[in-house]
């Protein structure tokens, strides 16, 4: 889309208007004391060094290339982690307990067994004698 061409006179007036902001000044004496204030803050910073994490953040803000490098490495680690989690074989997952190898093992009292087989249905088990309920009249 072609931008609308501005009125050159208005543009010129705008520039002159903005140039007037150059005359906005801080309170009197501000710049006389400014170097002293900077010196005081430097001395204070040398006496009480900043924590490492803040220095690290400062370094990132001053050097965008370093920040980009960190971001790329972090992204690669995340993507790599997700990719490895998806491509790893399912047998590698956690198991609660080893499935019983013999039927007798399953009768151990208090044994907690995890199995991939679906739980047996109560009414679909042919060997289980289940009588339908009746209501007494």
């Amino acid at each position: 889309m072609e931008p609308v061409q501005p009125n050159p006179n208005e543009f010129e007036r705008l520039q002159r208007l903005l140039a007037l902001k150059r005359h906005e000044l801080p309170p009197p004496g501000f710049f006389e004391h400014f170097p002293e204030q900077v010196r005081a803050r430097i001395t204070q910073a040398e006496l009480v060094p900043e924590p490492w994490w803040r220095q690290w953040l400062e370094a990132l803000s001053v050097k965008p290339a370093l920040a980009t490098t960190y971001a790329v490495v972090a992204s690669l680690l995340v993507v790599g982690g997700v990719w490895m989690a998806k491509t790893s074989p399912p047998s590698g997952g956690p198991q609660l307990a080893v499935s019983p190898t013999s039927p007798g093992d399953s009768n151990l009292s208090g044994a907690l067994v995890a199995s991939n087989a679906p739980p047996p249905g109560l009414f679909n088990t042919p060997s289980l004698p289940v009588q339908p309920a009746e209501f007494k009249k």
Partner: protein
Amino acid sequence: MSESAAAIPAASEAPAPPDDLTLVRQAQAGDAAAFDELVRRYQRQIYGVVYHMTSHHEDASDLAQEAFVKAWQALKSFKGDSSFFTWIYRIAVNRTLNHLKTRKFRESKHRFSLNDLDAEAENHPDMVAMVSRQTPRRDAALAELQEKLNDALVQLSENHRLVVTLHDIQGLPHEAIAQVMKCNTATVRTRLFYARQQLQGILSDYLK
């Protein structure tokens, strides 16, 4: 170190002031007075860019001081690939942009009054011409104009406000702005174009 130190006269009334690089080398060697001279040299510009970005005197003062403190701490890493001027500007601009991202614009305790505008500005032909046509009360019009200008700048995106501040207010050339913002001059020109267009809409009452 001894060569450069010998080249700089100790007296304050030196015929030719030392250039930035000489002062930087002295400061890198631990000469605090050389760094103070660099602070004195650029304090107005650095304070100015931060103030026009934040429209807040206290924040501007704090951020400008912080920029110089960080410059002192990082001075060892300054290789001279760019000028000290570009380097310190970049530090100040980055800190200001980070500040603006984390903190919303807030009203300054110290609103610049008309007395803060220097006498030259109040009698500036452009100022007189602009405000005298708007209202009969010139002082009120000046204050209104100042507030309107700041409000208009705050409505711009940070990158657009920065390019307007550096070019239209501080008078930096496109090439210098491109170095500070780490982009090419075409980007600077484009941003400037759209920023002015937006300002033109906001300040239309003052431009007709």
